Each structure stands twice: as C-alpha cells, then as structure tokens.
C-alpha cells in the first residue's frame, strides 16, 4: 500500500519539509481529503451490511412472528436453542458443506486445467478461449440453473435419452426425485457457472510464476509433471489459497441453483434456503434471524480457519499490501 502511494508533488514536499508546522498541516489536509473521498463509500458499505447484521442479532433474541406481531417477546437465546437442536439445521449444514467441498475440489482441478490452457495458448487462440470461458461467468445463475434443469428433467430433458446406455440411467430416471441425483445436477450447474472465476484467479497466479525458473528446470531435464509440482505450484500457492477461500465462501452461500431445481425437496435444503424459508416464507423473523446470524458466524469461522491455519493472506493477495 505504502509503496503505491503516488508522489504527491515531491518538489512541494521538499519545500514543505522546512517548516514542520506546514508539513503537519499538509498531512492533516491530505488525511482529511482522503476521508472526504473514501468516506462515502465506507459509510455506505457499513450501512448496508453492519446495520442489518446487528439488527438480525437483535431480532434473533425475540420470539417474533409477522403473523402475530403483538406476540413479540424477549426470549434470550431460545431461538438459537430451537435451531441448534433441530435436525433440519444440521442436515442443511451437512448438505451445504458437502456441496461446498465437492464444488471447490472439482473447480480447483478444472479451473487449473483451464488456466493452463489459457496461459499456454498461442495468441490467436487466446481471445477465443477467454471469450468462451467468460460466457458462464457472465450468465445469470438462475438461467444456468434452468438450462441444467431442463436438460436433465424427466419430461423435457434429453440427458436420459443420450445416456441410457450408462448403468443406472434410463428414460425413467427422475433426477430430481432423489437426493444424490438432485445434488449431482445442482453441483454440476454451480461448477459450470463459477469455474471461470477460479480459473481467472489461477491464471493471474500462473502469470506470476517466474519463467526463468521454469526454463531452468526444463534445461535441467525436469519432466512436465515435475516442473508443475516443484516449480509452478509452490510459486502460486498464495493465488491457489485465495481462489479456494473465495470460492468456498461463495459456494457456502449457494441458493439460486437449489431454489430453481428442487426448492429444497428430497433433502437438498441448504442453509441459505432454510433461512429464506423461515423468514420470508413463514415470516418467523426471530427464528430466521437466528439462522442468519449462525450462517454469518459460519462464514467468519471459515475465514478464521483459512487465515489462522492455512495462513491465507487475503489482503496481500487482493492487492492490499
């Protein structure tokens, strides 16, 4: 951050240095201008997140239903007890974690392959490949969900007809009537849509691997696999960690794909959907707020684990230092 500070008129600075008073005035003026410019964005960010989460925490301590607003009463941590002793919550947490782990692992492998392809591609192909990869990134998640849903759907789909030679798949297979098969399609749509993002992060990481190192290893007779394992991967560890953490946090909030394809049927309810159904569907503001706060705490926990245990330098990798 400091190295990036632009030279604010060095000549003026040198002159100002003569008078300490003048300089401190200048520093103050610069600090004031800095906050005038960055302040509005800062305040807006706090207003749209900090305020609602505090309100959610406050509401979570009350028995509060919009269907019976006069019944509102302080109940302490009762809502949390209700949520945490309900198997529905733990099941949703398990499904969410399962989706998160599977999507992140598959996306890491697939995204790395795509990044390598874009990195190595000759100039004439690079534009085409990047354009293609950006299409899933730009598409609305709900549209992706419908595309995958209709392809697999028992009545309007064609997947069953194409793959009826695969054991277990026949034209009678209803993908959205079982948990395993539903999750398969949900995860496929999620992976398709978000792999481009992870592959672009990894591409940026690949670009930072010093080419001399790779060439030196090649001259020394290292095979492609050895170069990848010994030179490339260690040099882009930071980029990989950041990509994994960002995608994990994003996958943990999964909502759109599940809502469109199953709406939580057959044991596919995820945490976000549970929170949505409780507050917006059943108007149980107290209980819904408790789930919202728990979801928020889960995200904090994932971040904490990543930063403390895996030493992910988020700020550094995102350009903060």
């Amino acid at each position: 951050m400091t190295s990036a500070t632009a030279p604010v008129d060095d000549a003026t600075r040198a002159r100002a240095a003569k008078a300490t008073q003048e300089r401190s005035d200048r520093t103050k003026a610069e600090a004031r201008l800095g906050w005038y410019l960055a302040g509005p964005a800062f305040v807006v960010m706090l207003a749209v997140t900090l305020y609602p989460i505090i309100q959610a925490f406050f509401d979570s301590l009350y028995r509060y239903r919009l269907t019976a607003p006069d019944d509102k009463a302080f109940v302490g941590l009762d809502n949390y007890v209700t949520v945490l002793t309900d198997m529905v919550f733990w099941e949703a947490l398990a499904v969410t974690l399962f989706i998160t782990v599977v999507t992140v692992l598959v996306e890491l492998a697939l995204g790395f392959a795509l990044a390598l392809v874009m990195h190595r591609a000759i100039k004439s192909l690079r534009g085409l490949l990047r354009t293609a990869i950006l299409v899933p990134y730009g598409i609305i998640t709900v549209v992706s969900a419908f595309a995958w849903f209709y392809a697999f759907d028992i009545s309007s789909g064609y997947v069953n007809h194409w793959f009826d030679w695969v054991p277990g798949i026949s034209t009678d297979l209803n993908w959205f009537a079982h948990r395993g098969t539903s999750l398969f399609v949900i995860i496929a749509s999620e992976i398709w849509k978000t792999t481009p993002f992870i592959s672009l992060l990894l591409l940026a990481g690949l670009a930072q691997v010093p080419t001399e190192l790779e060439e030196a290893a090649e001259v020394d007779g290292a095979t492609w696999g050895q170069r990848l394992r010994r030179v490339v991967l260690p040099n882009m560890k930071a980029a990989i960690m950041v990509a994994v953490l960002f995608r994990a946090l994003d996958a943990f909030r999964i909502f759109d794909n599940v809502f469109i394809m199953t709406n939580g049927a057959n044991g596919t309810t995820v945490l976000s959907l549970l929170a949505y159904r409780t507050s917006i569907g059943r108007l149980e503001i107290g209980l819904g707020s408790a789930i919202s706060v728990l979801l928020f705490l889960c995200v904090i926990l994932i971040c904490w684990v990543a930063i403390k245990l895996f030493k992910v330098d988020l700020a550094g990798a995102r350009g903060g230092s």
Partner: protein
Amino acid sequence: MRQMSTRLKIGWALITIFVLLYALFPVVSIFATSFKLPSQLNLGLFWPQTWTWDNYKEILAPDGSAQELFLSALRNSIGISLIATFIAVVLATLAAYAIARLNFPGKRLVLTTALGVSIFPVISLVTPLFNLWRNIGLYDTWLGLIIPYLSLTLPISIWTLAAFFRQIPWELEQAAQVDGATAWQAFRKAIVPLAAPGVFTTALIAFFIAWNDFVYGISLTSTSRARPVPAALAFFTGASQFEEPTGSISAAAVVVTIPVVILVLLFQRQIVAGLTQGAVKG
C-alpha cells in the same frame, strides 16, 4: 515463433473444441429448448423437431401470456442494475483515487471493509432488510433493491479500481501542467484517458453482479413493480394452467443472456484484466 508440429496443432484444436463445448453447451441447450413447440418438448431431443418463435411471442408480443411479466421485469432489472452500478462506480472511483494517490490513516480499513462486505452471506442481510423495508415503505420498490445491491457492487468496484489506479503514471498530470496546461486540462487530457478504461471495466463487472442477483430480488419484492428478471423467471407460469412454462422461461433466459454474450465478445480482454487485477496484483 517456433513452427508448430502437426501433432501440437491437432492437440490445440481438440483442446479448443473441448473448452468451447464446456463453455457453450448449456447456453446452446437452453437456446434449443426456447425454439421447441410446447407439444414437442417431451421428445427427448436436443434440437427442436419444428423450430418455432411461439415462445418468444409469449414473452414479447403484446398478446403474449407472459409479456407483461417479462417486460416489466426486464425494465426493472436494467434500471435497478444500471443505477446500482452507477452509484457504486462513482463512490468507488472517489475512494479508489484516495487509496491510490493519498496517504491517509484508515486506508487499510477501507480496503478490509470492502473485502469483508464482499464475502458477507447475502441471505443474512435479507431478513432484517425485509422487515425494515416493510416498515418504512421500501419493500417492493426500486430503491429497496438499489440500496442492498450496493453491498454487491461497491466492494468489488473499490478493489478493481484501486488496482487500476495504482498503475496510472500520475506524474503525467504534473508534466502536462509544466507544459502549460491548466490543472483541469492536465487532469482531463492526461489522466481521464488513462483512468477511463478501468472505470468502464469496473462498471461492466459490477453490472454483471447486479444483473445476476436472485436472493434480494425474490425476498424484497412481491410484484412486477420492482421484481427483476432472475426472480421473475422463478415465478413464470404457462400459457394455461396445464402447461409448463418451459418454453417461455427458456426464451426469456435467451433474451437476457444475449446482452451478456455481446458484452463478453466485445470486452473479454478488459473483463479478464479487471477480474485478475482486482484479485491478485498489488
């Protein structure tokens, strides 16, 4: 450049075809579905047996069953996303300029806050906003979506723009002034042309994110007054109650995907630069 061997050429051709298939298959799939006759939806075929514009008439023609629903959603989506993008980019430009050029305490705090907001679980904000918006009359209004959309568009705009602005050679401004330009001329002639591409790219990325929102869209609206496209798609109904809305949803999905594909085609280089710079470079 080294001459490529035939084997290598074939290899790259195969890789390219594979990547294109991966990236475009679901898009082509829903495109094909959007041209199927309702009566031929269940044939289990990929391409339509008879190509028809019927589904597009449902959502676009004046007598289409979903026309009112779709066009109002499209209007809402475009309006709300553009306004949320505009506000975010203006605020972020000021903040990113301060971060890139000025030395002030709390610079790190602003960046860290942006990072924190960008990983915030959206659904955690929905319950309190839903309740508050109902009480103060913002429920089911444009403003009621624009405000929460800032939580999606502002953080990424700040990061991306700060990364862009750090690469601008600001000395040019002084050089121009030494050459006799006024402060305003120097800013306009030397800095604006360098900063504009970054601002534009940031706006594009922020717009994609706002355009994609679903959680706020279904939670904070209830009618066509403010409901954006992704949320409206989930509430489509068929031409009659016995008909699945598959065709109209597919047609609507294609219509809202076309602008995305055009923008990606035109600006792929800038979008990649914006996404990777904001993400990894210092």
